[in-house]
């Protein structure tokens, strides 16, 4: 190191007052790279996105199929989009828990001391999580096919349904990221997330037809964004039809991101 001498004045002159969009993008992608490395080295992180769709799809199909639709096979077109929504949402929940765990590690001290965009440590893992959503969604459909589901929407419809589910999961992950920046421990993130997730997925049209519900519950179910996602995905997977429900789902996604992304960054900065 004696070969290169350090020039402080040049360094001061070079120093940028804020990260450029190109810097920010590179930093997000570097953090995404870190997250994928971590995933590959801790394969148990894939349990929730691989085993859960297999298990839940089979369980729900055989338990509820006969009661709700008369047979497993006739229940599948109703259920698979529902379980897809549930799977992707549960996957997005893990984002918050993992962020919380991560923030407590020593390496985050260094991230804070580096001249990097404050959104990068939050957005990077979320970019990597797109992989997890896609795996979870694909396995759900694969399991459905194995049980005898023949989506009427064809390949394009199914791909559309997966895409919409992935987008929704990614948007909702900002809520859990936000939780991850405020909660005191990974366990509390997990607990609070569960409390949000269970009503959101089960008080929707994901598993049962809405007209079987009492009026007050049906009213909530109709405004629940998860219901919109499930309806939109049913239209896509079963009829290759992009319905107005898809539009509502995307509007909900945009609102969630617009509120929770800036809030997460603000709360993350508060740690400084």
């Amino acid at each position: 190191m004696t070969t290169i001498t350090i020039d402080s004045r040049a360094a001061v002159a070079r120093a940028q007052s804020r990260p450029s969009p190109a810097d920010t993008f590179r930093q997000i992608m570097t953090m995404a790279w870190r997250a994928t490395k971590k995933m590959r080295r801790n394969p148990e992180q894939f349990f929730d996105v691989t085993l859960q769709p297999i298990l839940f799809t089979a369980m729900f199909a055989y338990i509820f199929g006969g009661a709700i639709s008369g047979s497993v096979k006739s229940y599948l077109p109703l259920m698979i989009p529902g379980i897809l929504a549930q799977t992707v949402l549960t996957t997005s929940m893990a984002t918050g828990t993992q962020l919380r765990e991560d923030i407590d590690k020593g390496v985050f001290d260094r991230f804070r001391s580096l001249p990097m965009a404050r959104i990068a440590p939050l957005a990077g893992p979320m970019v990597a999580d797109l992989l997890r959503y896609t795996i979870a969604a694909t396995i759900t459909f694969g399991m459905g096919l194995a049980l005898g589901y023949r989506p009427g929407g064809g390949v394009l419809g199914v791909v559309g349904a997966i895409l919409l589910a992935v987008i929704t999961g990614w948007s909702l992950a900002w809520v859990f990221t936000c939780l991850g920046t405020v909660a005191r421990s990974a366990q509390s993130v997990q607990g609070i997330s569960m409390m949000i997730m269970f009503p959101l997925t089960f008080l929707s049209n994901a598993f049962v037809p809405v007209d079987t519900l009492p009026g007050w519950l049906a009213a909530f179910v109709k405004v629940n964004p998860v219901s919109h996602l499930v309806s939109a995905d049913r239209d896509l997977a079963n009829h290759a039809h992009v319905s107005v429900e898809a539009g509502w789902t995307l509007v909900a996604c945009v609102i969630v991101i617009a509120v929770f992304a800036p809030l997460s960054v603000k709360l993350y900065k508060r740690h400084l």
Partner: protein
Amino acid sequence: MTAAVNAHGLVKAFGDVRAVDGIDLDIGEGEIFGVLGPNGAGKTTMLKMLATLLKIDEGEASIFGVDVRREPHRVRQLIGVTGQYASVDENLTATENLWMFGRLQGLSSRRSRDTAAQLLEQFGLTDAADKRIAQFSGGMRRRLDLAASLITRPPLIFLDEPTTGLDPRTRGQMWETIRDLVASGCTVLLTTQYLDEADQLAGRIAVIDRGRKVAEGTPDELKTSVGNLTLQLRLAPGADFSLAADVVRRQLGEEPVLTPESGQLNVALETADRVADVLIGLRQAGVHIASVGVDKPTLDEVFLALTGHDTAEDESEQPDATVPGPMRKEIPQEVAR
């Protein structure tokens, strides 16, 4: 020339506790500046404020003339921070860690890789380049951590207790590395609770106690402020300690520092000539001694003289260190006054 670090009236309060309570610092370029103090004195808190990791509650600070409060992003491009606990990623290998930090700071992928290889070689970590950090020893982690702070060759390095918990050999290597850094034009601000470390490395030292700066100067100046010399007596087993203290007090008119567990008695000395008086006095009082020595005062004694209490007293009073530091063996644990 602009100072590397300029701080005025820094304050950080956690609730009612003022962890840093009005500290001024002025550090020139190319200096190794030591901040010395016991656990909980506010060293780490002060360093975190300067490194943009903690909000400055009151006061002003600038790094090479760049305001820390107003332009934290620019400040972060001028500094490298190596904390008390290795801030590298456990899941990645050494190379991957350095590559990642390079990329995050705007180096191309290729340059990041080259810089990583070069730093690993310089820090003697080439053999461990593809090992995961989880398999690293404490000393290797510290070295990697320091390497990670040097990727963009920032002109100012903050080292927070760089050798706490390291074995003596690794500690010596770390000291060498720090000296090399300064030789390349870097300015270093280091905190330490090891008095000999500040003495060995730092050109100037600030002594911090309970959030305040109690003294500043070169190691020699600090020592001279206490007295030129110290007489170090080790009493024979079974010798009467209070009698020995009385004799010393009578002969020199100075208050001795006692460490009964190790049979040690230290006292400041005007000139070496006075030793004979003390020894004769002890002989006449019938106090036997095991060994006797005359030396410049240690920084322990400096600290004691400056603050009126010894360095081990402040444990757990202030939220400076989140994890208790290791035992400070070289500091007398109990000092009778």
